[in-house]
């Protein structure tokens, strides 16, 4: 880097909304984005006129492949009545809308625009699991695909390297899963808003109704160890280590700092943004971290003047349980090799010292890939403004939250830090 990063002028988030995430046979990308947009409008405390939006940046990854329709910028612009304002699609695999957010920030910081809508959408559930697996693998490196790797496989391999280096095991991954489900249980927008305990009780009830012997799991960990309940996908990644296939949309409204209070008395300021790129699995210098996340974090912390310990809550890209552990280390919240211990000690729970993925994360909230980046920011928006309801973290003077996204096998990683003043 030549000198410190800086923004030309300040940027604030003044509205944020998302659709429910899930598998919807009867909802398409346009319907879902309209749902997210409508909620976003309702969150702008002093109201706003959509006609004032200067531009749209939209993240989307797989719609070309899954619904055979590309060029989603103008489709969504037309949907919202924004034409002829410019619409730009960003693609960074599963970090697509995190890139849209970043481009929106740059567009305002440069002085070019004052109001920008950024968001993302994905429609994935209308295809078979095999098709989706193959489609998502388009974001891996070609060598990984030739070697038979799937996405769960890449993260599974990283997990074996992490286990061998630090002595962690599948049991530690289970801690991540249990926590994610506990949080998602309190999130009505989540695809799986049930705890592991709820799922166990449902299964036991079902067996009883069929007059079969009920499963005798003593606790959540035993349920997760049971191969019938939690089959292997790509060892050591099992079903409950993996995010689901999801449909959904999300968006946030960005404005220049000077006009933020025209929209709300409680804006969130964009204090840190960072982005990095990374190599394929074979070329990574180390299999236990993502250099792109570390770079993104360095950039975002540098811009904000904040340190990892200043970030009070974070949404991280837990496409797989091992990823959450690696990310909280890469972001500097915990030392390398200590992330899994922090999760085990409960530090990342809702009531812990560093709540992670209060929304339930990708694992439980759902992962409509293009919608995930701005979807994470919707959760930070709710938490920092004290609007997260039952899952509101009990931290006093909550001011700083962050969201980290990852695309592909770590090829594109971002970190965004928001602050309430």
């Amino acid at each position: 880097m030549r000198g410190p990063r800086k923004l030309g002028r300040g940027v604030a988030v003044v509205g944020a909304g998302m659709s429910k995430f899930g598998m919807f046979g009867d909802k398409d990308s346009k319907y879902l984005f309209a749902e997210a947009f409508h909620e976003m409008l309702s969150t702008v405390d002093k109201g706003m006129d959509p006609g004032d939006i200067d531009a749209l940046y939209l993240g989307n990854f797989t719609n070309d492949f899954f619904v055979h329709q590309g060029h989603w910028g103008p489709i969504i612009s037309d949907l919202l009545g924004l034409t002829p304002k410019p619409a730009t699609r960003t693609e960074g695999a599963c970090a697509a809308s995190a890139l849209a957010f970043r481009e929106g920030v740059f567009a305002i910081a440069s002085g070019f625009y004052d109001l920008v809508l950024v968001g993302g959408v994905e429609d994935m559930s209308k295809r078979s699991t095999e098709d989706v697996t193959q489609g998502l693998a388009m974001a891996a490196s070609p060598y990984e695909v030739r070697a038979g790797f799937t996405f769960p496989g890449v993260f599974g391999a990283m997990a074996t390297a992490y286990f061998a280096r630090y002595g962690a095991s599948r049991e530690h991954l289970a801690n991540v899963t249990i926590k994610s489900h506990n949080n998602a249980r309190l999130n009505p927008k989540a695809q799986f808003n049930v705890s592991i305990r709820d799922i166990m009780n449902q299964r036991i009830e079902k067996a009883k109704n069929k007059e079969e012997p009920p499963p005798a799991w003593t606790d959540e960990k035993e349920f997760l160890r049971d191969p019938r309940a939690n089959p292997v996908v790509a060892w050591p990644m099992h079903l409950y280590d993996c995010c689901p296939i999801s449909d959904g949309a999300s968006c946030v409204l960005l404005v220049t700092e000077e006009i933020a209070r025209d929209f709300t008395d409680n804006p969130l300021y964009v204090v840190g943004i960072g982005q990095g790129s990374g190599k394929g699995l074979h070329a990574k210098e180390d299999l236990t971290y993502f250099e792109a996340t570390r770079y993104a974090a360095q950039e975002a912390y540098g811009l904000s003047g904040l340190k990892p310990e200043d970030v009070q809550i974070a949404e991280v890209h837990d496409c797989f349980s091992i990823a959450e552990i690696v990310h909280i280390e890469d972001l500097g919240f915990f030392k390398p090799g200590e992330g899994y211990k922090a999760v085990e000690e409960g530090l990342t729970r809702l009531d812990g010292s560093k709540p992670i993925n209060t929304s339930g994360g990708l694992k439980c909230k759902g992962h409509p890939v293009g919608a995930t980046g701005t979807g994470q920011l919707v959760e930070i928006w709710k938490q920092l403004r004290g609007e997260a309801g039952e899952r509101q973290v009990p931290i006093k003077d909550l001011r700083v939250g962050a969201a980290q996204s990852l695309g592909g096998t770590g090829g594109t990683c971002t970190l965004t830090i928001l602050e309430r003043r």
Partner: protein
Amino acid sequence: MEARAFNDISYERFLGEDKLMGSRCQKCGALSVPPRSICIECYGSEMEWVEMKGKGKLAAFTCIAIGPPLMIEEGYDRKHPYVSGVVELEEGLRVVARIEGVDGNKPETIKIGTPLKAEFLHRGEGENRTTFLAFRPS
């Protein structure tokens, strides 16, 4: 050796000839597998081919139960998982490859650090012939 472009097409062709080939920068000596046409150490563009010895050890692995159509066609499924891995070559570089000769149903028996040797899995005939890099315990 005939001149071949330092790219993935040539890399695949060499695999078809049972050779694991990388590129070496003639200016600074940096090795790369798969090959690169530009050296990212010194940005030189004069490369030469180097054959890897095909020996290495297992650095990471996964046993995949839900694979892509390509692997399903080969007979792999939830009951018959296959193994993919990252192999650290003696030359100090890593490659991703299929791992043969291990039991995907018994991941606890597969150990990181296991010495491996390369083999070349040829599939299909004629224009459809393709080769996959694999390693198995040596």
